C-alpha cells in the first residue's frame, strides 16, 4: 500500500505502521517477561507464530491452574 499511495498520505501510514510495530514488539517482550525465563528474545523472534500462540495459551492455562491451586490452599 505504501508503494501505491500518494506521497501526502505516506507520512500518516508510516506513523501508523511504526506504532503497530512498537505494540507488537512490546507484546513479545511481555511474553518473554511472563514466561519466567522459558523463552528468550532470539527464540521468540524465530519461533513460528502459531507456536507462539500455543505457548501463550499454555502459559495462561498454567497460570490459571496455579492460581486455582493457590486459592484452594488458602481456603
Amino acid at each position: 500500500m505504501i508503494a501505491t499511495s500518494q506521497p501526502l498520505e505516506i507520512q500518516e501510514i508510516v506513523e501508523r505502521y511504526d506504532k503497530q510495530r512498537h505494540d507488537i514488539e512490546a507484546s513479545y517482550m511481555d511474553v518473554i517477561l511472563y514466561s519466567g525465563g522459558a523463552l528468550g528474545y532470539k527464540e521468540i523472534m524465530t519461533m513460528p507464530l502459531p507456536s507462539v500462540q500455543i505457548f501463550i495459551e499454555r502459559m495462561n492455562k498454567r497460570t490459571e491452574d496455579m492460581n486455582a491451586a493457590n486459592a484452594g490452599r488458602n481456603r
Partner: protein
Amino acid sequence: MSENPLIAAYKKPAVFVSLPSGAKWYDPKPKLSVDNELAVYPMSARDELLTKTPDALFNGEANIALLSSCCPDIVNPRQVPVNDLLVLLIAIRQATYGNTFDVDLECPNCKHLNQLTIDSGTLLSKVNAVTADQEVKLDRNFKVLVRPYTIEDRTIIQIQNIKRQKMIDSLLASDADEDTKSKMFGETFVELATLTVDIITNCIESVQAPESSDVIVDKALIREWLQNISKKDHDVIKQRVEDLSDDGLDTNFKAKCIECSHEWTQEVELDMSNFFVG
C-alpha cells in the same frame, strides 16, 4: 539475526500451494511436492515485524525477506515472477493466522463501513495457471519470447512512479519559470521511458528476426532493437508481459450492507496493508 539451525530444521510447512506460473521462469526451479505444489511455512515474530516496517515495504525488502523465510524452497526470491507473489503472500498469511481474514468495505449506498470476511482457502483453490502465450509474433514476423515481470522489476516500477509523482508535485508547487519546469518535466519523462525500456528488456528472453535461424538472447542487442521498433510493436510486447504477469486471482467479492441491505460486487485490493494482521 541468524536463525538457530535447530529451530529452522524444526519448522514445518503449514500450507502447500499451486503457483499460477507453474514454477516456470524460476532459476533454479523451486523444490515442489509430487503434486507440483510449493510448501509454505508460517511467519516468525521477526517476519511479522517486517510486515510493519514502512521502509522495507516501500523498497520491496519485506516481500523478499518473507519469501526467504516462509518459502525456503525458492532459492532466489528477487526473481520470483510477479504473478506468483499475491498467491504466495496469501498462503503465508493462511499458514500463520488461519483461513479467514477481514477487510473493511464501505457501502456505496449508505456509506456504512462493513466488515467482509474472506476465506483465503477458497481464494487459493481458484488459482489458475497462466494461459497467455510466451511467444509474441510481430507484424514483420519477428518472434519475441517474453516472460512476466519479476518482483524486483515490479518494485522498481512502483518506486519510480512515486518518485515521478513527487517530482511533478514539487515542480507544480515551485516558483521556477515555465522553461525550467518544462525542461525538468521532459527529463522526468525521459528517465521513465528509459526505465520502461530497461524493464521490458529484462522481460524479453529472446528475439528471432524474420527468415533467420539466429535467436538473439544478448540483452544489449535486444535493448537497442527495442528502442528502434514502432510504438505499436512495443505496446504489443508490453501488453503480453502484462498478461503473463497477471496472477489470475479473482478478487471481486459480493457484499451486502448490514445497515441498508444494499448488495454489490467490489474488487478488494489485497496486499500487506490489509491482510497481514492477526
